[in-house]
């Protein structure tokens, strides 16, 4: 997606932007310290499911917005996979036109309230911020994004995007995660008749069943889904494409094209002894029981383990979510066991920090090699291999290598395996002629996201393997634009 520099320049040259720029000196802006996100007390929050981050106050947001220098060539935008017009939305906050800021976000993002909460900002937009070059902290773009969309939602005047005149063309979407939702939104805007099919009983994909409510409340996701419904997008839950209805059924029912956004839902295991003991489970099982099935609530029929000594294997967001969930469900000792060092953990920095504050124990440079069970077949111990950092590998990261003979046996009564997911194989196996890579991801044309079946496009984790919310959304938008083009050129 090329950013239209002319358009950006024109917007930047608008009188109000110029005036705002002149109102405060750059040096003065740069000297404002970065805002701190208010959050719940760690002791308190580690026992409940309330959202940890409380959001910025209006005053905080106005001040933080002032830090942004409104660069002529804003690099932050190149770090955002959907190219949100970052200076424009931030400057709108600075002049206290928050609803305008929210509108700006929606020009390119279908789920700003979600991204403002879960994007790995320090690796995306904020990593490119000019302040970093000046050895200052980046503008808190993610916090401001969250602020603007929360403000709009709470104001009760959420705008429903304008729609093109209906063209009556039926489009099917497989999966209701961020890729599917953002695709559906854009296609509805173009005037298509969009139906989203979802295998589970809830809409939202990983946003609902994976990411816990203390990080992303389900209500926030539901508001966004509501807007899509108001835009005419239809949702059919409990329907598995490839099982309940086939590719051929969809074609017969008149769907002119299909967007596959079925995610990477298959949990990986390590295939080590004892991994099938009871008490050893995947992060998907653990998080689904709690987030989707409310197993932590009294009213729920779904049971969940309440481990006292819980080890979570892995170093990504999923691992952090699992270990913090375990703390909230009463674990006295909740541990992260990860084979690399802390610097190499793929999780968002903020979540690592939050986990630490909540009393999570980090056992880096440890790799599980065996689980030991009691006489009832329940896990009671795990053996870990001690690791050290060796030479850098192809990825530039220093490779963890075993320290010969150094192992440790740790008491555990529950283990959550969070070492990644693989693409869901259901769709590739049910759509004849759809080609996949050796990792099982669907092969697409990088520019159009079209698959080898001309009427099928694909995006999100099913194409990338486990990635991020915003990348999945970016794919949704890209596929929508390409599909729209393909259908109108026909």
């Amino acid at each position: 997606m090329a950013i239209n520099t002319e358009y950006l320049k024109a917007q930047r040259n608008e009188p109000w932007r110029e005036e705002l720029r002149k109102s405060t000196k750059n040096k003065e802006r740069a000297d404002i310290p970065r805002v701190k996100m208010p959050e719940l007390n760690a002791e308190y929050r580690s026992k409940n499911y309330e959202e940890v981050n409380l959001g910025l106050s209006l005053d905080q947001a106005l001040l933080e917005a002032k830090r942004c220098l409104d660069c002529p060539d804003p690099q932050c935008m190149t770090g955002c996979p959907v190219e949100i017009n970052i200076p424009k939305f931030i400057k709108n906050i600075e002049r206290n036109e928050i609803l305008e800021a929210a509108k700006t976000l929606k020009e390119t993002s279908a789920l700003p309230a979600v991204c403002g909460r879960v994007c790995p900002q320090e690796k995306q937009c904020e990593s490119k911020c000019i302040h970093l070059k000046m050895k200052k902290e980046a503008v808190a773009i993610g916090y401001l994004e969250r602020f603007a969309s929360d403000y709009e939602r709470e104001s009760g005047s959420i705008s429903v995007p304008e729609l093109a005149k209906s063209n009556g063309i039926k489009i099917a979407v497989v999966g209701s995660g961020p890729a599917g939702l953002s695709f559906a939104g854009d296609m509805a805007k173009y005037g298509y008749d969009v139906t989203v099919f979802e295998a589970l009983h809830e809409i939202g994909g990983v946003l609902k069943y994976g990411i816990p409510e203390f990080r992303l409340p389900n209500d926030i996701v539901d508001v966004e889904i509501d807007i899509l419904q108001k835009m005419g997008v239809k949702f059919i839950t409990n329907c598995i494409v490839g099982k309940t209805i086939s590719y051929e059924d969809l074609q017969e029912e008149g769907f002119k094209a299909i967007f596959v956004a079925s995610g990477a839902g298959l949990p990986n295991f390590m295939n080590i002894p004892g991994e099938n003991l009871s008490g050893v489970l995947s992060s998907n099982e653990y998080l689904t029981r709690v987030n989707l099935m409310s197993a932590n609530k009294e009213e729920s029929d779904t049971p969940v383990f309440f481990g006292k000594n819980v080890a979570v294997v892995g170093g990504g967001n999923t691992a952090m979510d699992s270990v913090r969930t375990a703390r909230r469900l009463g674990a006295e000792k909740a541990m992260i066991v990860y084979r690399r060092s802390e610097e190499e953990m793929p999780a968002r920095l903020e979540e690592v920090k939050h986990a630490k504050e909540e009393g999570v124990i980090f056992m880096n440079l440890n790799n599980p090699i065996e689980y030991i069970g009691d006489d009832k077949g329940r896990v009671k111990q795990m053996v870990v291999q001690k690791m050290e950092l060796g030479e850098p590998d192809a990825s530039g990261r220093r490779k963890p290598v075993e320290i010969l003979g150094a192992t440790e046996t740790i008491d555990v009564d529950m283990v959550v395996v969070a070492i990644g997911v693989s693409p869901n194989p259901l769709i590739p196996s049910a759509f004849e002629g759809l080609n996949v890579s050796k990792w099982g991801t669907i092969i697409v044309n990088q520019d159009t996201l079209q698959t080898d079946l001309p009427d099928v496009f694909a995006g999100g984790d099913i194409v990338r393997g486990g990635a991020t919310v915003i990348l999945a959304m970016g794919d949704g938008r890209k596929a929508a634009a390409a599909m729209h083009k393909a259908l109108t050129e026909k």
Partner: protein
Amino acid sequence: MNKIVKKEVLSQNVVKLEVEAPLIAKSRKAGHFVIVKLGKYGERIPLTIAGADTNKGTIDLVIQNVGKSSKKICELNEGDFITDLVGPLGKATHIENFGTVVCACGGVGTAPMLPIIEAMKKAGNKVITVQAARTKELIILEDEIKKYSDEVVIMTDDGSYGNKGLVTNGIEDVINREKVDLCVTIGPAVMMKFVSLLTQKYNIPTVASLNTIMVDGTGMCGACRVTVGGKTKFVCVDGPEFDAHQVDFDEMMMRLNSYKDFE
């Protein structure tokens, strides 16, 4: 929301529900199952599709009341709705003309066996069904089974009906009498374990339909994993049917009890 159009009580603990689900009725095959969830806080539980009527657009579910969630489903009545129902899930049974097939079922396992018996018969097999239960009152679906079986052997633990003895006694009698080319078994895990041990002794290929704990039923959570031939498999997508002689039944039984202390 799927409407219950008919309810039948098969035994004191087992009911049969005919449920509206036209898409599933159309696409299901023998061996497939569905996931059912009742109410906002309901659990997702797997149930085999025991039959279907494509004209009416309905499927049959046969449910044994064993715990909290199955009890809630058993208590539903005609006209009530199932909140969420998704399927068909799992791989369909591999059906071909094997020759003589023994279908060994126990308890509620008899219901999922029904479509298999029918499909095996239609594929030209000689079908001998051995149905077992603790006592006479627990024998279900006898007439339905007879319809497609060449022979039905009924076994009760207490001898109150059919022959006295375990399911394995019934199978062994058949084996001693004639050549058996395939055995299919569905029932409680212990039962399938002993059926498997028996047929292994006689080198008879055996398929078991496993009933592990499930959450999503689509290969996403791994709750349903079992060890088959030393490898980890997911029952919901790789199964539910596996080569019984390769299944680690002891591990499976242990995992079935995983959540006992937490409910």
